[in-house]
């Protein structure tokens, strides 16, 4: 029933794509493809389950018991809806964007640094949240944010969120640091033992620090940096590079480094601290006074999803309190709703639902030329340049 409009739209997308290739000089390229992808032609009615659904997600988001028989929230979904789940995991947001281009996935769990790119690329469709009963329970401060919606049109359902915290070795730091300066201006005190997250998006961490320490730069949002602000952040990171022992992206590496003392200070995730605390390592985490970057992940539906009904069913299921609690708890992040906390005992540790805490987090957002902080007088540095700069920083 919804097949006809969907096919028609795909035709339109192709047309736009061809058009934009032909008109290379078209500066409003983003707007053009945005037109076809962003206007509200979300699903209006749920149909029959297709019997299968293909999901792309961070490792630990879609567990069917095959890695650990006790960790399984996919089987109940399959039993309930009859949608067989196949899943693929990715290691970085950038990989996710890439994989979505293959068109092989119906659903994707994307962090904020991927969502806007997916929307702009026409890879994901607007989501009709009315068809997702569990959407209502989701924390309000996670809804309709710049990383999961465009012009008030939602593009997905929030999943879990967390902050990129500052981890330190309690033996090296007798007193808990309160500022990010231990990894920036004072990084040389622990030269060779400082660690940082290995992704271009880490430049935003430097920007958060500069917001507090160099107000004259006038940074309003760490994801909306003009040329000068961006250069300041890059310079800060180049200095930091001299003290960095290693950059991390997989968390086994980070856990190992802090356990052995190869790293003593740097960014981390709460779940890493939980594992370390469990093994008795002398580490702790703080949310420094400058605030921090963080992530709020969104379940999205592919624009040409072959199994759109099962996709919606998954979105609803994974937002349900119990499934959401199980999944976010396994991954180690705060759940998306208060109800989910009834199924978790560690909500406190993740400051779930704590709006005050959540407000100090600058959630990952894709930096685009059109400044996300609303400035129109300058052009912001886009993610491609962030990536190039990140490679320069690492050297």
């Amino acid at each position: 029933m919804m097949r006809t409009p969907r096919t028609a739209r795909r035709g339109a997308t192709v047309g736009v794509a061809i058009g934009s290739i032909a008109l290379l000089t078209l500066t409003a390229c983003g707007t053009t493809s945005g037109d076809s992808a962003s206007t509200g032609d979300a699903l209006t009615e749920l149909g029959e389950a297709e019997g299968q659904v293909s999901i792309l997600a961070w490792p630990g988001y879609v567990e069917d018991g095959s890695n650990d028989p006790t960790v399984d929230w996919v089987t109940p979904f399959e039993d309930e809806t009859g949608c067989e789940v196949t899943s693929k995991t990715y290691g970085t947001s950038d990989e996710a964007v890439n994989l979505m281009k293959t068109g092989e996935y119906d659903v994707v769990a994307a962090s904020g640094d991927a969502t806007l790119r997916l929307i702009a690329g026409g890879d994901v469709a607007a989501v009709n949240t009315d068809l997702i009963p569990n959407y209502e329970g989701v924390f309000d401060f996670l809804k309709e944010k710049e990383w999961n919606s465009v012009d008030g049109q939602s593009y997905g359902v929030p999943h879990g969120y967390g902050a990129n915290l500052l981890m330190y070795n309690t033996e090296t730091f007798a007193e808990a640091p309160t500022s990010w300066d231990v990894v920036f201006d004072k990084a040389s005190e622990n030269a060779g033992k400082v660690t940082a997250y290995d992704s271009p998006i880490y430049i935003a961490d430097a920007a958060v620090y500069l917001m507090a320490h160099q107000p004259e730069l006038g940074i309003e949002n760490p994801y909306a940096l003009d040329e000068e602000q961006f250069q300041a952040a890059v310079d800060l990171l180049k200095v930091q590079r001299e003290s960095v022992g290693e950059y991390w992206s997989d968390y086994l590496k980070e856990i190992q480094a802090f356990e052995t003392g190869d790293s003593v200070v740097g960014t981390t995730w709460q779940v890493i601290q939980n594992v370390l605390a469990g093994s008795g390592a002398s580490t702790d985490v703080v949310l420094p006074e400058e605030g921090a970057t963080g992530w709020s992940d969104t379940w999205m539906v592919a624009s040409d999803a072959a199994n759109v009904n099962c996709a919606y069913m998954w979105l609803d299921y994974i937002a349900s309190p119990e499934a959401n609690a199980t999944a976010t708890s396994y991954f180690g992040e705060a759940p998306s709703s208060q109800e989910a906390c009834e199924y978790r005992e560690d909500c406190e540790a993740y400051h779930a639902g704590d709006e005050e805490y959540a407000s100090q987090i600058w959630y990952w957002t894709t930096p685009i030329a059109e400044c996300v902080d609303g400035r129109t007088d300058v052009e912001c540095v886009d993610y491609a340049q962030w990536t190039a700069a990140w490679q320069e920083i690492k050297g």
Partner: protein
Amino acid sequence: MRLSRLSRTTLAVVAGLILVIVYVPLGVVLVNSFSTSTSLSWPPPGFTFEWWQRAFQSAGAMEAVGTSVFVAIIATAIALVLGTLISFALQRFDFFGRHTVNLLVILPIALPGIITGIALNNFFRTIMGVPLSIWTVIIAHATFCIVTVFNNVIARLRRTGTKLEEASADLGAGVWTTFRLVTFPQLRSALLAGGLLAFALSFDEIIVTTFTAGSGVTTLPIFILNNMFRPNQAPIVSVIAVVLVLVSIIPIWLAQRLSGDEQQRR
């Protein structure tokens, strides 16, 4: 060769030392598989059988081993056929472009995996327009496995010459018969060695696999990589590695036996 006692001993000691260095990290893996630490930290804080138990219960791990074996067997089979054909062509014939063909066989292994990986990824997805699947992995693996078969077979062909085959032909045997009864038996151990290396190469390949595996295709190396990003799974991976090393003795030993017998017979 007449080596002095001293040089023999020195050589033996050096060889022994190198082997020790080779096995120390494997020892670490073995110890880690019994460690209570989930992050492979050293020294192990405690002893446990938990990971061994969980590894054998892990359907994902078993499936991944199955997938890897499947991929490796088919890729090896393709490589055996193509590698043998090409070694006959290059060894028995002199033709224009012979060196180019030789280079072409070597290239997939000589060029870094990441290049082969992105080239094939681009080829499958944008040029052929086929979705990535287990078959794209097999095609990719077979491509860089050809060279191991090729090298073993061509070396053998060079050594055996064509006398026996000519004799067979002179006695009236057809091309197929000669191949089946004369050429193939001479090649058997070379095929075995080449095939075994191809299998090992495919089984442990991660870089090209990352770029050519479709959704849901989890070979063992990919499973291991994914588990590095999951809580509390690292020691299971150690268990798998230990088991693989132990199990690998069987095919290697068999191959050795077969080729050894052959050498003795000659």
